[in-house]
């Protein structure tokens, strides 16, 4: 079992570092500590074919990819984490590692899911204008609803933390799959604001 469940920094996609820097830079600027910034603006690059024609299209593609992932994840969790290779192709990078670790945890502890976690979207967080980089091309906020789900151990005793958040917001991000025509889950992390779940 891992010692660190969550911490100060946790893993952050690169873009969020930019936001963190924004805060830092803003804070320094208020204090008058910022020198004139060197002109590091990159030259404009030629545009490539847009990945998505609209917000709706990006949202729909990501929602569909998450739905595919979660449907299979639910099956594996209901099966106590066995045959977890079923998740391959539906998750990559952090999301794949986290999924496989979780499945291993289920197998090791004899956990299994009863009922299924539901997900409700969703809010588009960002999407990439082009396919220059296939990583983190779409980000969403989603709301996971655990109200009709329970995790039990081999003795059929619930191992869910008492008082857990029933509807919890997560931030999910997607890479472009190698096939290039669909998205695949790359990361899923808790999101600080539960506003997504309020609606």
């Amino acid at each position, binding site marked *: 079992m891992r010692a*660190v469940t969550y*911490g100060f920094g946790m893993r952050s996609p*690169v873009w969020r570092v930019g936001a963190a820097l924004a805060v*830092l830079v803003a804070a320094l600027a208020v204090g008058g500590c910022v020198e004139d910034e*060197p002109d590091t603006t990159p030259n404009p690059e030629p545009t490539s074919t847009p990945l998505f024609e609209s917000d709706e299209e990006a949202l729909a593609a990501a929602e569909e990819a998450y739905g595919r992932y979660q449907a299979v994840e639910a099956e594996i969790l209901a099966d106590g984490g066995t045959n977890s290779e079923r998740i391959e192709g539906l998750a990559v990078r952090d999301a794949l590692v986290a999924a496989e670790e979780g499945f291993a945890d289920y197998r090791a502890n004899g956990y299994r899911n009863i009922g299924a976690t539901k997900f409700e979207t969703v809010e588009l*967080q960002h999407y990439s*204008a082009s396919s220059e980089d296939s990583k983190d091309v779409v980000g969403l906020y989603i709301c996971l609803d*655990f109200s009709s789900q329970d995790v039990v151990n081999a003795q059929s005793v619930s191992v869910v933390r008492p008082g857990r958040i029933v509807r919890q917001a997560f931030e999910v991000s997607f890479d472009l799959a190698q096939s290039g025509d669909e998205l695949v889950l790359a990361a899923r992390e808790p999101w*600080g604001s*539960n506003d997504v779940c309020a609606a």
Partner: protein
Amino acid sequence: MRRLKMVSLVGTISALLIVGLIAPSAWAGFPPCTNSEIERGECFTSGRIGGDSVELGASESRGGGGSGPQGPRRERPTLISQMTDQERAEYFAEEKALAEQEGRDWREPFWTSAPPAAPTAPITLADIASFRPAVGTAGMEPNGWMVTGLDTNFFSAATTHVVDGELLGAPAAVRFTPRSFTFDYGDGGSARTATGGGSWASLGLAEFDPTPTSHVYTTSGTFTIDISVAFGAEYTLDGQNWTAIAGTLSVPAARFTASAGDATTVLVARDCRADPRGPGC
């Protein structure tokens, strides 16, 4: 005294944060929640972006070894969820008292669900309203007239470009990338394309050849053609990391008013000496 989970956690964290800020690829110091943790309700938010910067400042003022001006002090345990409510309350009270002594701002990290407002609210198109994208030049061929039944070529030269300005009170740049071009041909026809098109010459085509953005007028008359560009936007505060902004910004690029006639009318009815730039001259 409570058992400590990780003795030099704060020092480690601050090192990771500093390294992370310098080299984002080194950020990956903490594994994400596993789905087992998520499903069992053991995965919480950490306050995220705002929390990071707050903690960065705090840990700098304390030094990395866990002993500051106030003497040795208790480190933050790894799992607040493993504390009892009473332990957690004690722990937070201690943190708060210490912060007050040191004159720092303090708020309950991790456990409170409300994140700081500014950094977590995504930058929207409204926030970058002061950044105006350049639409570039647009053109039509033949210039100012069309031959019914033949292709008239329209194009926009809008390209990806960067506009400097200020965002959240800090110097920033916004990169606009054309996502789509809309051609409203004025005769009821329209097209939405990924390309802005180009002149016949630049495309290596002959006059009146079809292009991805050309249009065939079937009736004579005067038409108003509108070209607009939908830009996607990204912003950067450090000149290196670009963050996409959701949505697109639609900007009018050009309006042409032009007459369509049949070939005889437009090609013969004028005198090239009187109008050397006229059709067919």
